[in-house]
């Protein structure tokens, strides 16, 4: 087998060195009843050519986003990633290294994580950021847990604009720890309701911007109300490109900002792997989950980086840790950092404006169609439309015409009573031809 270097001779000689008669004798601690005599009933080994063909066949049964007009968003956004990003993250030294526990021979990973943390802190407008979470949704759930630890309160209020999957992930995690999560009814704008819901038991409010419906929200007033009540404000962002244009969470008074970073450097990947961004005010850092790279010096006085503040973490603090997270999303964080290092502040701002411009063009194309009502007044690159038909059925009909028309709200939140609402998104990858094809086909479907 091509991945196994030992030859039969090696095995024989090594057994001799060990002083074992055969390989079975090394497994003698396994209860006899559980020792399998031979290979399990699964296919035998296969060459590269066969495996590649096999998987190519499966891949061919999916409609790639790039294979036609495409307007899906709702928490996962299609952006162009420069070829150099994917090349660099595949370098052996990044791809095949472990968590940087031995800093003297892991400065490549550590320095790039330090760069990542700084970039995330700047984007979110907060003081510190960690070295990544699994994704935006688990980062959000951890933020709720952290807020409960900080405030010693047990209730989180989630805006109705929060992505339903984020709400469910937070609920699932918080529930078992006895923390209640209250999601307000699905709404494009529920600032008043959120402020209303805050009380003395509130650990945090969780507000998303741009929210599920694409609506850009100024969180400032909510954050003020939360602060007044001794609660924290968690701002969620699922489209990291928006940081290039919109007010940062920190600017709006957030205590914790979490985001899905996959828009920058990572790609769609059918939902994973992604990369969770997690930032907070400096004062809260010791309650933060996840790894942190920090600056220090070596024995010769030269600057270097190490993993630090690990007394927060499971491998040191065990059941007193701030989280159980261990493996996180290092390589995606690296991809994020490289892509953002290429873009720079200037490039990200420009990219964000292009996204906004294309989404406006999409709106302008859809708004004139009979049976389409644009619901989101102020959006970044995504907005909700109400159709004169079932949104999920319309999406299926357009998929049959090779147009991926967006995400029906009913897929995410079947109870919201929004079966006729469709979320549509445009990015720099969306062309005018795509938009025209979509608008034309949609008009026909709805006619």
């Amino acid at each position, binding site marked *: *087998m091509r991945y*196994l*270097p*030992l030859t039969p001779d090696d*095995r024989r000689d090594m057994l001799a060195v060990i002083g074992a008669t055969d*390989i079975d004798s*090394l497994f003698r*601690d396994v*209860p006899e009843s*559980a020792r399998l005599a031979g*290979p*399990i009933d699964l*296919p035998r080994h296969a060459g590269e050519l066969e*495996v590649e063909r096999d998987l*190519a066949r499966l891949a*061919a049964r*999916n409609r790639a986003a790039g294979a036609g007009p495409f307007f*899906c968003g709702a928490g*996962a956004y299609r952006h162009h990633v420069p070829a*150099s990003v994917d*090349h660099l993250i595949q370098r052996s*030294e990044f791809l*095949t*290294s*472990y968590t940087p*526990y031995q800093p003297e*021979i892991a*400065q490549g990973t550590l320095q790039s994580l330090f*760069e990542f943390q700084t970039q995330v802190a700047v984007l979110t407008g907060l003081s*510190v950021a960690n070295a990544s979470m699994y*994704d935006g949704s688990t980062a959000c759930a951890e933020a709720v847990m952290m807020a409960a630890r900080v405030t010693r309160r047990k209730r989180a209020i989630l805006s109705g604009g929060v992505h339903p999957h*984020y709400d*469910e*992930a937070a609920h699932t995690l918080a529930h078992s720890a006895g923390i209640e999560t209250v999601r307000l009814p699905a709404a494009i704008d529920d600032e008043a309701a959120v402020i209303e819901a805050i009380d003395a038991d509130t650990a945090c409010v969780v507000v998303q911007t741009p929210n599920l419906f694409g609506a*850009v929200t*100024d969180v400032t007033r909510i954050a003020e109300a939360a602060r007044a009540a001794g609660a924290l404000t968690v701002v969620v962002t699922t489209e990291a490109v928006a940081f290039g*244009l919109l007010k940062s969470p920190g*600017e709006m008074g957030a205590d914790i900002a979490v985001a899905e970073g996959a828009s920058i450097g990572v790609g769609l*990947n*059918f939902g994973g*792997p992604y990369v969770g961004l997690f930032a907070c005010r400096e004062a809260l850092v010791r309650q933060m989950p996840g790894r942190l790279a*920090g600056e220090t*010096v070596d024995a*010769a*006085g030269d600057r270097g980086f*190490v993993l*630090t*503040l690990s007394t927060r973490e*499971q491998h040191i603090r*065990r059941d007193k840790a701030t989280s*159980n*997270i261990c493996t996180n999303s*290092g390589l995606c964080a690296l991809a994020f950092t490289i892509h953002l290092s*290429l*873009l720079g*502040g200037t490039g990200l701002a420009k990219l964000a404006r*292009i996204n*906004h*411009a294309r989404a406006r063009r999409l709106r302008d194309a859809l708004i004139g169609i009979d049976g389409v009502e644009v619901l989101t007044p102020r959006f970044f690159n995504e907005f909700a439309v109400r159709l004169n038909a079932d949104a999920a059925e319309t999406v299926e009909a357009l*998929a049959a015409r090779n147009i991926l028309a967006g995400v029906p709200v009913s897929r995410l939140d079947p109870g919201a009573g929004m079966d006729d609402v469709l979320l549509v998104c445009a990015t720099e990858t969306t062309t005018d031809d795509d938009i025209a094809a979509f608008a034309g086909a949609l008009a026909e479907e709805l006619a």
Partner: protein
Amino acid sequence: MSLARVGRPSRAETDTLQAPAASGHGLVQDEPLIFELGGWDKTGVDLPDETAPLDDLKGLTRAEALRLPGLSEPEAVRHYVRLSQKNHAIDLAIYPLGSCTMKHNPRLDEKVARFAGFADIHPLQPVSTVQGALALMNELACWLTTLTGMPAVALSPKAGAHGELCGLLAIRAAHEAKGDARKTVLVPTSAHGTNPATAALAGYGVVEIGQTDDGRVDLADLKAKLHDDVAAVMVTNPNTCGLFERDVLEIARLTHAAGAFFYCDGANFNAIVGRVRPGDLGVDAMHINLHKTFSTPHGGGGPGAGPVVLSQALAKHAPTPWLVSGPEGFSLLEHADGDAAAALGRMCAFHGQMGMYVRALAYMKSHGADGLRQVAEDAVLNANYIKARLGGALSVAYPEGPCMHEALFDDAWLEDTGIATLDFAKALIDEGFHPMTMYFPLVAHGAMLIEPTETESRRELDRFCDAVLRLAEAARAHDVERFKGAPFHAPLRRLDETLAARKPRLRWTPAENSSAD
């Protein structure tokens, strides 16, 4: 070493033309942070000049420009290539971290994961347009359940610890469904930190179980602590001492008899894959680190994937989404209702780590059932070979009987040398090797835990053992300087971790500010 240097590049960097710039030597380049490369107005991405009015977003946009540097592509590529060369990697040499299963990462897996049909599909496309992706998930699930002999699997957890959480939440759901709100999870002392941390996160109190002199769960202690408030017993098998829990069937029996569930930490599945099915050991839930046993790359700390196989009793509590197969192909139950009404909830947005599923499946298909069995055998053979070659010079923590995939040593043999485990490990760097895991598991004093994996050749094992033996001789010869000062040949000398924690600098700040503190 003056503290004032922290926060600034180790060699002077200025913007004036004639000042000496940072440099390097031979093939090694010093490399500042991206924030020190002067790219404040640059970008390495060409974008069309295209904007729209921002009238819709009045009051909602950034007040100030984003202060993030950009680099032209040549500069960015060079920056990260230079940084990369300061890393050790499995592609460079053995990476003998215990309990980490650092094995070869096939490039085929990277290639197939990048097929547009996998990498460029959206998680919320109509399921009719992603039948291949769902079929792949189904096939992966089939391999995982067959290899473990378990009836069900939840694919979505994003790493091992997330899988542990998923398993404990399923256990909680099962107890709650019976109206039985248990509060405690039993965890052996030797457990990985994620086990107690996960139990606490899942709202359980953690009680430690002791260990016998031969490195296994102390059955007597287990019996004593198993009562009707115990929700689960969490055992790693093979455990983190590299030993198979001989009494695993009895542990399972006792656990079940107490109305508790048996959670198995499957991080070390590599030792037994293809030879032993955890389902035959009475396990109720076990996570599988695809980034260990099934070789998806560690990537300097993730991403990984931690699917959890579940027993019949727990299967109905698996988190959404559920993958179901019907006459019209595959579909997803994405909400905890209908057939999935007992689901424990949702572990994360979307459907988990698709990119890792593709890699892991390519890896499994490549090996096949026969190859995977050989994986376990070679992994165990390599570990025992290391134990045999080093056993004479170092002190084996549990000398009796074979080990499984990793060999555990303690620091008894270093007594009187004035050299600590840490020093010894750092000196290995000077010999061209990455250190073993140190000071874990906690049950062995000054532990050194070595896991070679099956993808090391005998030649590399010998190179490694020779280096360890050379160093051991030097240690016995009281060549203390060689150890205390190590490493001498790495890109940096030993780093001051205490300073980092005492005065955390967690991001770059402009020099103006840093001079203030």
